[in-house]
């Protein structure tokens, strides 16, 4: 599996974004709301809102995804390529039992799949196949979404803030589940604003600011010897223990007092 993104542009919101993901790699995409992280992910999935168009190139195993027909993309989604969104309640069908939902990727792609109970048990939810999403907790729902995303053993999994809406103990479970259940040669693109999470999950990291990638490298290099001012400021702001020691750390450029919607609540 290889994913090659070159010169990706979405209106003015994502500009000249290029990166590469190889088999088995776990790469983090970090940045604040409005930095273009999610649009980058949606461009890869072919799920941009109607009014936005991506230009440049996104190639999955040498197959161009930008401009591919909806039919072609549908064949990929939930199959070779899958995604876990932040809010599991809106990602699930409220009127369908979860057992039927987790096996949907098999039906859609015309495969003979494993039974729902087995898929659910693999994410720690045995015996829940007959439940509806509203009968499960947030963490359990996110497990269902994850079970769906993993059903067809994707070669690329994109997670967009998969644990942001969850409690810390549940977050820890979901993260180890993501790390543990991906096939060895499958790649992971992990979007988050939480540096501690990225450090525990990813070996490589891309930092986005205002639609551009401003820094990239091994997680170790980027987080321990950051080069870009923004990355440094982000680290300072994330380290609450250090903040307590030296009050008045400088806010990252553009985080405050710029465009009104900048840094808006999620």
């Amino acid at each position: 599996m290889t994913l090659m993104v070159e010169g990706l542009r979405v209106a003015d919101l994502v500009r000249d974004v290029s990166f590469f993901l190889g088999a088995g790699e776990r790469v983090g995409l970090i940045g604040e709301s409005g930095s273009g992280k999610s649009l980058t992910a949606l461009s890869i999935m072919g799920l941009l809102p109607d009014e936005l168009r991506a230009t440049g190139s996104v190639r999955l195993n040498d197959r161009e995804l930008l401009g591919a027909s909806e039919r072609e993309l549908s064949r990929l989604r939930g199959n070779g390529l899958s995604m876990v969104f932040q809010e599991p309640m809106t990602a699930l069908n409220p009127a369908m039992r979860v057992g039927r939902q987790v096996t949907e990727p098999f039906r859609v792609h015309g495969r003979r799949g494993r039974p729902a109970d087995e898929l659910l048990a693999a994410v720690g939810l045995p015996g829940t196949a007959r439940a509806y999403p509203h009968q499960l907790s947030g963490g359990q729902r996110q497990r269902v979404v994850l079970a769906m995303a993993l059903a067809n053993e994707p070669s690329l999994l994109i997670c967009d803030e998969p644990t942001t809406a969850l409690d810390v103990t549940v977050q820890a479970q979901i993260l180890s589940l993501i790390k543990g259940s991906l096939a060895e040669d499958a790649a992971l693109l992990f979007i988050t604003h939480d540096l501690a999470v990225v450090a525990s999950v990813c070996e490589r990291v891309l930092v986005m600011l205002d639609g551009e990638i401003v820094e990239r490298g091994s997680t170790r290099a980027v987080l321990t010897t950051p080069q870009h001012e923004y990355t440094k400021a982000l680290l300072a702001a994330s380290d609450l223990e250090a903040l307590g020691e030296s009050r008045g750390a400088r806010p990252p450029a553009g985080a405050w007092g710029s465009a009104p919607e900048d840094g808006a609540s999620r």
Partner: protein
Amino acid sequence: MSPVIEVRNLTRRYARRDVEALRGVSFDVDAGQRFGIVGESGSGKSTLVRLLAALDRPTSGTVSFAGRRIDNVPERKLGFLRSSMQIVFQDPMGSLDPRMRVRDIISEPLGRRSPERVASLLEAVGLPAEAASRYPHQFSGGQRQRISIARALAPNPSVLLADEPVSALDVSVRAQILDLLARLVAEFSLTLVFVSHDLGVVRHVCDRVAVMRRGEIVEIGAVEDVYETPQHEYTRELLAAAPNLRAELARLSGGSAENA
């Protein structure tokens, strides 16, 4: 000196859903304290906040504010509480009237117009004076939370009740709002009750913390003690599960957090 807030054996049962949201909670908050309440969803934090603010009535137990019961008092007799205790909510967009200008939002708790007071409050929370004539949607999430804080400070409260005030904000904005709260608490000699699911944030802001689980306080004590030497199994679990940037950086750089 008697505590500002006294909570005794507080229970709250939601009969229709047969949920015991609070199961016998007792604690004191002293004047000038920065009291953190930490817990996961379903721990009873939000129910407790509603009872502390007398927005709900307990099934049993008592809540006193400055020595006066507030749990069994009709709304018309809660005037003293409404001005002395102010709340900052999680979602600033949901708690600011979108059709009011900032100056009207901030002066609403005063019950009168006072451009000078509005200007000094805006300055206190780090917003420009021109913000007064604008509407909430014209601001970012962090700026809106500053507006909520300015409104909360308007009636000169003695207690600020902050319910997940930074949970919906980006990290850099979060740091600014936390610093702002810390500065204002010192500057205006406020007592702070700070509710959060985020252990790191509570540690940063508070000097005392109560850890809640399933409607009970499982551990309470000085922040340093609870974080350094947690006594209850659940506190240890919570601390272990919370992503810790320092620990991760130390691991990445091979054991020394200092050169991070």
